[in-house]
Each structure stands twice: as structure tokens, then as C-alpha cells.
């Protein structure tokens, strides 16, 4: 038990973060067949929102509210100005979003410096769970992230926007024939993905080194999630996050974390050989 519970909770921390980060990536990929290499930068933007809010005297909770709005607005603006022009060509989308990612990183370095930023979590301390002490903040993170994930699922299943979105993922042509405004759906889905990633950035910031380059590691992991799980489906994201997050946590107990990531990549590539569209495609 002493080993099993921390392992389970550590896995859940990574899995719940991956759930909300990869959700945006998977939706954008499933909807528009566009790989958004700037997705990791929205995590960074979220974390830096926390830095700015706390530097201005605001609390963690304020940042948790502000960051998704910042992510949504920046995401919407970038979609309208740049991304909407490149949907037809996946390679162009890769180059444009990668360019964006480099620019955002350097602008943050110029604005805030390259050294890690100082942020603080809402509460320290640890609690006892079945005889094991575990940081309270991580428990909050797991609960909050899972709640956000469930809210996103409800958004997809119960609202008009979700219906239009799912219809567009299945067949964007048929959906637009039926009167779904494809441009509007694309823009909103992209901005929603950005908002989710920014939220994840705030959640991550108290337990990670906040630098301009922090997004890239989560970008790579989210890719594995989408690759292994399958693009455009909530089930795929859940399956992918569980496999990647659980596996990486399990491996990092035995080997250095870089080797664990390398092994996860190897596994993702092997899975692709047999299921090129992922375990649970849309």
C-alpha cells in the first residue's frame, strides 16, 4: 500500500494534466487535421499569467480565472489572423504554428528573462491518505483537472456548440451543408483548446519550473496522447492520457526520467505500427 498509493496519485497528477492539455490538441487535430505546434506555448502563457497576476498582488484563484480568458482571447486572435489561412495544408500549418511557438518563447524570454519565475501555490501542507502523506495541492490539482475534463465532455455532449463540433469532426462538409458555420466552429474550438492549455499552465506552475520553454515537454507528451489514443475523440484522449501518464510515472520509478520518456516514445511508435489511427479514433 505504501508504494501503491503515491504511485497512483503521481500517475493521476500527470494523467489529469495531460487530459486537459491533450484535449485541445486532439480536438483541433480531429476537427481541422491541423497539428498545432504552438499548443505548448499556451501552457506557458497560462503559467506566465499566474506570474503576472501574483506579481501584481493578485491571488492564485484570480489567475485561475484570468488565465483561460487570456488563453481564449490570444487563441481566438491567432486563429483569425493566421491559423485559419492554413487549414487546407497540414504542412503549412505545422510551419506556421512552429513559427508562432518560437516567437512566443522568445518574446517571453525578452519580457521576463530566461531564469525560472517565482510563483506560489494556493496552499502548502500535506494530508494523510490511508497512512500516506501526500501534498494537498496535488490532490486539489487532480480533482480540479478532472472536473474541468468532465465539464468539457458535458460541453461536447449537451450543448449546441458541442453538437456542431462533433458533427464537424465527423464530416465538416455535411455539417456545413446542414447550416453549421464551419469558420465559427473552428475558431471557437481552437480558442477553447488554448483556454484549456492555459488553465493547465496555471495548475502546473506551482510544481514546475516556470520558464519560457516549459510548454515544449507537455507538447511532446500531448502528441503521444493523441497518437496513441486517437484524434478527435474524448475516449481517445482519456485512453491516451492514461497510458502515457501511467506508463511514464511507472517507468520513472525504475529509470531516469529522460529514459522513461524515450521508452514512452518507443512504445508510441510501436503502437502506431499496429494502430496507425490510435486506439480509439473518432
Amino acid at each position: 500500500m505504501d508504494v501503491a498509493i503515491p504511485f497512483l496519485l503521481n500517475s493521476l497528477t500527470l494523467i489529469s494534466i495531460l487530459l486537459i492539455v491533450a484535449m485541445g490538441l486532439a480536438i483541433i487535430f480531429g476537427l481541422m487535421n491541423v497539428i498545432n505546434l504552438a499548443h505548448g506555448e499556451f501552457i506557458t502563457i497560462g503559467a506566465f499569467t499566474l506570474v503576472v497576476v501574483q506579481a501584481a498582488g493578485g491571488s492564485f484563484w484570480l489567475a485561475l480565472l484570468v488565465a483561460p480568458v487570456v488563453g481564449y482571447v490570444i487563441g481566438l486572435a491567432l486563429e483569425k489572423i493566421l491559423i485559419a489561412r492554413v487549414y487546407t495544408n497540414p504542412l503549412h500549418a505545422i510551419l506556421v504554428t512552429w513559427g508562432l511557438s518560437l516567437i512566443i518563447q522568445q518574446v517571453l524570454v525578452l519580457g521576463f528573462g530566461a531564469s525560472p519565475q517565482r510563483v506560489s501555490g494556493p496552499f502548502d501542507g500535506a494530508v494523510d491518505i490511508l497512512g500516506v502523506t501526500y501534498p494537498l495541492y496535488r490532490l486539489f490539482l487532480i480533482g480540479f483537472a478532472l472536473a474541468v475534463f468532465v465539464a468539457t465532455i458535458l460541453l461536447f455532449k449537451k450543448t449546441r456548440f458541442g453538437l456542431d463540433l462533433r458533427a464537424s469532426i465527423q464530416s465538416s462538409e455535411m455539417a456545413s451543408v446542414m447550416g453549421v458555420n464551419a469558420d465559427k466552429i473552428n475558431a471557437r474550438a481552437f480558442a477553447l483548446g488554448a483556454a484549456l492549455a492555459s488553465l493547465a499552465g496555471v495548475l502546473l506552475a506551482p510544481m514546475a519550473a516556470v520558464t519560457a520553454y516549459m510548454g515544449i515537454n507537455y507538447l511532446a507528451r500531448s502528441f503521444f496522447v493523441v497518437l496513441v489514443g486517437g484524434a478527435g475523440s474524448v475516449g481517445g484522449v482519456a485512453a491516451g492520457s492514461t497510458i502515457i501518464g501511467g506508463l511514464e510515472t511507472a517507468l520513472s520509478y525504475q529509470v531516469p526520467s529522460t529514459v522513461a520518456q524515450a521508452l514512452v516514445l518507443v512504445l508510441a511508435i510501436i503502437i502506431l505500427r499496429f494502430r496507425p489511427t490510435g486506439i480509439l479514433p473518432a
Partner: protein
Amino acid sequence: MSANIDHTPVPGKLAVSKLKPSILIAVLMLTVLAALPLFIDGYTLGSYRDILLLGLFALSLDIFWGRTGILSFGHATFFGLGAYGMAVATTRFGIDPYWVSVIGLLTGVGLAASVSLIVGYFMLYGGVRGAYFTIVTLALTLIANQIAVGWSSVTGGDSGLIGVPPFSILGYSFVGPAASYYLALSLLALCLLVALKVMHGRIGLLLKAVQDNELKVRTLGYRTQFVLLATFVVSATIAGLAGAIYATCTGFVAPDMIALLLSTEVIIWVAVGGSGTLTGAVIGTFIVWQLQQKISSYSVAAWPIFIGSFFILLVLLFPKGLPAFLMDKLRPGAKKEKAVQ
């Protein structure tokens, strides 16, 4: 119908007419480069030698990306594997100096070739194409970089490895700028001319056909997955070769030789020269490298911003690549090549 089912592809007029100018430009460029040491020497020649090797690296990417239309975001992995293979083999084991460079070369190139073979097999035979291929190779570079930084007992970590001896074979050592310059130039010339010859022949046509419609080509009886895998492995092997020789010329390896930024830069070199043109990749390397020196001397942070802006401009303004864009300006209405797919 029976007349159409013919397994020998006839070299079309297109291939023949395209062959002449590109080989002409390649030969002209190589001649100018061969005469260069008559006019400059020392440090400047050394930096030109580095550009030649990076040009060889760009050529390797163009062989795969330009000819198959599948973008590899991980070519720095193979360049870095070549460099690190060479560095680790030559500095760590105390091998007889007579053979050390050859063993280092085989280690580096062998590493690049085997990693590309394994990764390429699982992806290309698994039907992974297009954007998926790009992001898996991107992740490959990311993780290779983390291993290069993290596994410091072997790779030297952040500071890398120093003391890689100059390349020597059968007792002859390529010491000094001029000797190593000609070594780099002859490797580049060999790879470039062979690549041009092959790509304008049957295999080039086959790759072009695969790029247009892989299913159709497979239906005609070609093993398209094998062709793509072979191209990928050859491309990665050349990248490894460039990396291994680069390490012997600079005398050290560092994690930025196996980093995402290098993977990004090599894409720019190829895109500026016009992807698929092969010679253009080398010319693009020359142009961008000069530009990079100027911009970096102004501000180190400016360079990534410049690369980022360049990608966006490339796609929005010159979606077919710079050369095609200029050609269009010069010859309005002329049929142009597809540069950036």
C-alpha cells in the same frame, strides 16, 4: 488497356528537361567552391567548411522531404547521432589512432542508420504519413536532446565532449583548414552529384509518383513502403555522415547539435533553396548561414524570432518556396515547381 500496364516507367520529357540546368548549377557551384581556398584561408575557410557540412546535412533532408513530400522534423537527431557517435568512440575508448577516425565514422553513421531504420520501419510500414510522421520525428529530436543532456557520463551532458581528433584514414590526417575543407567539399560533391543522378533517374520518378498517389503506385506493383524506408534511411545516413565529419572538424560536440532548433534551421535552409531541388538546399544553407551570423551578432534572441517570422512569411507569401516565387516574378505565367508541399 494492355498497352498501359507497363512496369518500366518511361523517363518523361519533364525529367530530361529538368536534369540539365540543375546539374549545370551544381557543377558550377562546386567549381567555385573548389577554387575558394585560393582566395581565402585560415578561420574564414574553416567557417566555409562548416557551411559545406551543414549544406550536406540540408541535402540529406531534401532527399527525403523534397522527394517524398513527408517532412522530417527530426533530422538533427541523425546529424547529432553521427556527431556523438564519432565523439564518444574517438574520445572514450583509447582506440589505436590509426583506426580511431574510421571506427568513429562507422559508429556515428551506423547509429544514425540503425535508428532511422527502426523508427522508419515502424512508421512507414505502419502507414504513418504526413503530419503524424512530422510530429513523431519532432518528438524523436526532443528526446534525443534530453538523453544527450541527461546521460552525462557518456555524452558529457550540457558541456558536451571535447578533443575529437581530426579525421584521418590510412595514416593520412586531414589537419588544417584547407585539408578539411577539401574533405568536406569532396563528400558534398559526391553526395550531391550521386543524388542528382539518382533522383533524375527511375527512382526519382518513382518517388515523385509515390508523392502524388501512393496507393496507385502500390497497385502498379511497386513496394512503396520499402522505397520510402530506403529513402529515409539513406537520408538519415547522409545526415549522420555530415554530423560525424562536422564533429571531427570542430573538435567537439554539444547538445545543440542534436536539438530541435537545428532541426528547425535545416528545414529553413532547404525551404529557402527550394525543397526538392537538391542543389538549392546547399545554396540555401549558404544564404541563411550568412544571415544568421549577422542577426545573431546583433542579438542572440533575435534569431529564433527571425526564424519564427520566416516560417509564417514563407507560408503566407511564398508557399511554393523562394526560388519558385522569384521564378514566377521573372517569368509570369510560367509553369512552376511545387516547392513547399
